[in-house]
């Protein structure tokens, strides 16, 4: 009986997740579209080209910034995660780079309001203080296309102990 109830809950949950992702509207993409008008007289088009065009941006991205991050020494598994603020309208992919350029960790896509899995480093670090490491935020549109948007990097000092 409990197995039937469990199966019913799984089916209902799967339907809810599918329905939610299906109804998510696309966000407008930031880009330039150059129409196929080449071959026409460019001089005659100059009057039609707006010289000043103020376009409202399609939203902002909030990026959490850090001056320092504390990590566990001699251990790849860390007890920290990183979040994507709920007010954002984009996915995050967050990466942590050592100051020699080594990628220590890279997240999966993190949706707005969600938290990454616990950080598991590619290599354990010795205790110490390491300046000029990079926490990189790559941002992607919150729809099926996952188009790359503007991004950010924050220089951090890793305190490993």
């Amino acid at each position, binding site marked *: 009986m*409990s*197995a039937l109830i*469990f*199966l019913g809950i799984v089916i209902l949950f799967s339907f809810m997740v599918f329905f939610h992702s299906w109804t998510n509207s696309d966000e*407008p*993409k*930031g*880009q*330039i*579209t*150059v*129409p196929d*008008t*080449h071959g026409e007289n*460019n001089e005659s*088009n*100059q009057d*039609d*080209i*707006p*010289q*000043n*065009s*103020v*376009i*409202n*941006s*399609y*939203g*902002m*991205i*909030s*990026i*959490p*910034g*850090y*001056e320092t*991050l*504390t990590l566990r020494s001699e251990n790849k598994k860390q*007890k*920290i*995660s*990183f*979040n994507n*603020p709920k007010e954002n*309208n*984009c996915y995050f992919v967050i990466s942590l780079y050592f100051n020699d350029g080594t990628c220590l960790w890279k997240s999966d896509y993190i949706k707005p309001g969600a*938290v990454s899995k*616990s950080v598991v480093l590619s290599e354990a670090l010795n205790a110490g203080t390491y300046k000029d490491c990079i926490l990189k935020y790559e*941002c992607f*549109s919150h729809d099926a296309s996952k*188009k*790359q*948007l*503007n*991004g*950010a*990097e*924050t*220089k951090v000092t890793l305190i490993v102990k």
Partner: protein
Amino acid sequence: MKKLIAAILTLILILSVSANVLADGTTTLTTTVPSATYTLNIPADQEIAFGACESDIGNVTVTDSAGFAKGKDLKVTITYDAFSSDSVNTTIPYKINPRSSENLNLNTNILYSGDHLIFRGISNGAVAKKAELEKYSVDYLNIKIASEDWGKALAGEYSSTITFTSEVVSSEN
């Protein structure tokens, strides 16, 4: 037959309980999200009308800042490349012009790729929300594209991403 049915149902029950345990196990790891020192707010993206020589793309600001030591500012370096397309080999170069509503005479400044903005530290351990430009606040960023570059661009979809790199630095003055 009854024993076989009972055994199958028992196996299903065990598997369903095990699935619950496995699902619950992944949520029991104890992790923390470190408190951010500041929040950097950047334009997500921007749509530029064909032929537009100037386009406002919003602003880069800093909010929720705390714990900055005295004499520390936040430096934000901006890097970008020309608009490019996957389908054609022409590019559309552009420049970023930081603008102030307070002093329009400053609106000839250009932020080339690799240039930076400074957000000044203030006495309460925070930093200013807007970047400082020659003692005035930067209120928005403007993309400038020369009309001759529009003329050279082949038809297609072009895109460009801007990366904002932030770091805590010692005040320069």
